[in-house]
């Protein structure tokens, strides 16, 4: 088996012993893939993503990232610089007073100088169409703006893989469309956990469904989206 960027090998996980969330779940992400991760509420999508960045450690099974087996916190420290994770709730992700400081947080952690960080901030913000946002107060942004700033904060670390947990949840149509447009332009391999049919149209090129603690392929291409929509809308 050729190694992908991210490989989960028969991982199991439970928060609570009598209700396992993942059961010998396998997953592989290759370069240039944009995987859509479907599944009902509570099926474990967030759990899978957290496992990839080592916020949760599997009860059994192996996590291999960029070809390297990751076990300890130390292994994952390296991984987290190269894998960007967008949280489900942006409020949990933005904790600095201003946008500029929040976006600079990652680069500063990676040892960049303040000058470099500042440049990265302005570059990233203009990439996402958020010019002159540097001094805005994160706590007061609208839901859509928070999402985009959180995404900027993730992209500022120049990750090779993106994990996006419901990037359009809680956004209205206009804001969601903006996020979709931005995602389409990004070059990285991605895993997008989502319920949102708007995302499945275009950024995503492979669909997986999490059910019963395992990932199963959802029929590919147009059919998949039709299928999904059939489920949402009778």
């Amino acid at each position: 088996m050729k190694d992908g960027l991210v490989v989960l090998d028969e991982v199991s996980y439970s928060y609570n012993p009598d209700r396992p969330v993942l059961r010998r779940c396998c997953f592989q992400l290759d370069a240039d893939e944009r995987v859509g991760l479907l599944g009902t509420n509570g099926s474990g999508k967030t759990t899978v993503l957290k496992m990839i960045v080592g916020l949760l450690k599997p009860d059994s099974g192996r996590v291999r990232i960029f070809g390297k087996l990751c076990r300890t916190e130390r292994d994952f420290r390296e991984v987290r610089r190269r894998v960007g994770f967008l949280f489900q709730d942006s409020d949990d992700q933005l904790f600095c007073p201003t946008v500029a400081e929040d976006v600079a947080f990652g680069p500063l952690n990676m040892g960049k100088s303040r000058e470099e960080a500042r440049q990265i901030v302005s570059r990233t913000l203009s990439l996402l169409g958020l010019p002159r946002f540097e001094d805005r107060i994160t706590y007061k942004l609208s839901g859509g703006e928070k999402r985009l700033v959180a995404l900027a904060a993730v992209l500022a670390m120049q990750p090779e893989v993106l994990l996006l947990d419901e990037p359009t949840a809680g956004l209205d149509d206009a804001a969601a469309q903006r996020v979709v447009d931005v995602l389409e332009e990004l070059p990285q391999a991605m895993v997008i956990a989502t319920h949102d049919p708007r995302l499945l149209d275009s950024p995503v090129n492979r669909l997986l469904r999490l059910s019963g603690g395992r990932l199963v392929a959802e029929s590919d291409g147009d059919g998949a989206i039709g299928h999904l929509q059939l489920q949402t809308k009778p």
Partner: protein
Amino acid sequence: MSNVIENAGSYGASLAPTNGWCLNGVDPRTRLIAAFCFSMVVTALSSPTTLVAALGIAVVGAGWTGALTEQRWKRLIPINLLVLLLLGLLPLGGGATPVLSIGPITVAREGLVQAVLIGLKANAIVLGVLVLLARLEMASIGHALGTLGVPAKLTHLLLFTVRYLGVLQREYGRLRAAMKVRGFRPGVDWHTYRSFGYLVGMLLLRSVDRADRIVMAMKCRGFYDRFHPLDRAALTARDAWFTAIVLLVLAGLTVLEWA
């Protein structure tokens, strides 16, 4: 630390009543007063024999009631760190009978004895209180204080604080996880301290917003300007038994000390 946070709100859980446990039927008020009296009496002791006896009783109590199972023994750590510190420092404070002297440093016997006695006493008290209060919900302790005459505002302050500890710990955990995935590792530098400062500020802001929503919810349920307690059960025969045993133990210790 991280596991304290990961087991968000589990303080209460580790104190939760379980079936078939011998102090279960005893009223929280009685247990609280007993803990207080036990602390008082043991604090007043000074002879080594009595202190050893007190510690012995606490240990037996802990064994009998299972108070040290799960993670509760960890609560002995802070006090013993303090005792270790004293054990290191008190003997250096000078005294009549040096046991060891290296250059200018003299280790005195008095200090050593004093530190050991403090250690005995501290462990007896902490362990005794742990036994007497074990598996009591913080919430019941709050109620007990209320019925013991502590002002309503203060007991409600305590109850609200306990209620939202878990919520805040989860919020803290999520923010910390978000920092972690962006490569944050605490170090000894300005960036670290500033980030912690922001983290605290953000927690406070969210808390204030939440507090405002709580007040709204209270108003929606007819809250006007005071709290009305829903009172608790009366004392029972078990309380009498429990009180008798505790009094007996305390009397025994007193007699041992001064007789």
